[in-house]
């Protein structure tokens, strides 16, 4: 078991420490060091939390997709590997939901300040909401189905969800959008002011490190649960084997 391993455990603590440290640096950069945005005032600082989490929340679903495919592939060939793929899929789905939630919340707070409304059915926002809904329904399925079958069914649903996400993007591209255009790789006016860059990258790094930390932590937890279950079953088998027949 990986968690019982002391070196891995200290690596885990180290990673946690780094995550917290970088989050603190990012916070300092974003709140105290960067000049106030001319147009939006201090509310513009939500940018440093909204955009990194938004970007990351688009990555975790694909980790979930990859893990689910791996699960489906290994399901009959190598059940043990399949189990760890499943644990990873579950962990990444949960992290995806968390990050999407943060994006939605920071976004709507920002929207309240910038646009005067909490929500609008604009392409970006709607697609983000759908992403959130898809992965919440993934977690719901895992809750509702009986033990033993939930993993396969969840993996199947994950394939659907992953196919759906690009379709969502495509299908609402034609809507008029209120949400700002992409900062990177957009038109000639895209890109951000130099003064904002350090804060942005510190925060992006911080949220990425933090996300990976909770992903692995959740993964290890789920693995431990799986091992405990297996061990209990194994013990039951072994105990019964000792009884002379």
């Amino acid at each position, binding site marked *: 078991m990986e968690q019982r391993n002391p070196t891995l455990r200290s690596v885990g603590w180290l990673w946690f420490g780094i995550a917290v440290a970088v989050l603190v640096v990012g916070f300092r950069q974003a709140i105290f060091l960067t000049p106030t945005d001319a147009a939006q005032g201090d509310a513009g600082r939500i940018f440093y939390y909204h955009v990194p989490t938004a970007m990351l929340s688009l990555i975790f679903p694909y980790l979930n997709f990859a893990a689910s495919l791996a699960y*489906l592939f290994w399901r009959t060939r190598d059940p043990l590997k399949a189990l760890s793929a499943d644990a990873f899929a579950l962990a990444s789905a949960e992290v995806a939901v968390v990050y999407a939630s943060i994006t939605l919340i920071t976004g709507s707070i920002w929207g309240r300040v910038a646009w005067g409304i909490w929500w609008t059915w604009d392409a970006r926002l709607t697609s983000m909401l*759908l992403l959130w*809904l*898809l992965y*919440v*329904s993934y977690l*719901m*399925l895992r809750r*509702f*189905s*009986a033990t*033993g*079958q939930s993993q*396969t*069914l969840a993996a*199947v*649903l994950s*394939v*659907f*969800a992953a*196919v*759906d996400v690009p*379709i*969502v993007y*495509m*299908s*609402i591209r*034609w809507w008029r959008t209120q949400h700002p255009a992409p900062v990177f790789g957009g038109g000639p006016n895209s890109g951000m002011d130099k003064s904002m860059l350090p804060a942005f990258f510190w925060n992006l790094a911080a949220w990425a490190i933090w996300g990976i930390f909770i992903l692995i932590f959740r993964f290890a937890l789920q693995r431990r649960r799986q091992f405990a279950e297996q061990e209990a079953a194994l013990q039951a088998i072994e105990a019964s084997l000792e009884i002379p027949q």
Partner: protein
Amino acid sequence: MTYLHHVLDHLRKDLRLEWRSRDSINGMLFFALLVVVVFGLAFDPAGYPTTTRQISGGVLWVALLFASITALNLSWARELRNQVLEAQRMAPAPASALFVGKALANMLFVLVVEAFLAPIFIVFFNLHVLGNVWLLALILPLGTWALVVNGTFFAALGLRARNRELLLPLLLLPISLPALLAMVQATTGVLTADLDAIQINTWIKQLVGYDIIFTTICILLFETVLNAE
């Protein structure tokens, strides 16, 4: 060819089962009708004809969506009743034929409901279609198939879960939202004549793409779902 025969066998069986009871179709029809009435009461169509035209595409699809959700659940509950499903799993015929047969049967049922509902809907909401009516004959089946193919699949997926009836909408709605969006936009576009031909075309193309992609995935993954213990 054998595959086709199997699909037809399943389809015939489902139609026969439905014919013996007629529960699904009658239920769906009445349910959809009620939803239309509820919306009629809630929104007062006569008072605001323009508003009505704007929302009626949405109302139509929402009514069909909820009506079909119950019927889709029923269609698998039949297989579950005497554990017939286990017999299906033991049969050497390909699993996906069962899926295709059932999806086709459900498609037929919902189409029948639509055929009854459409005129009633128009009368009730006092609609004058401003756009090209014939486009609706394309949009309706495409949208229906999008609902039905995913619905049949997810009803099977939730089959052995604790609260089947509750689970299906929870899974189906998020997955079908893009299709729903396309259907509603296209339908409303035709009703109000607000969208030009190119825009409607785009929505229809998306619907076709959605149908093709999801039908393929469903067929590929159905066996896995059926045999997930």
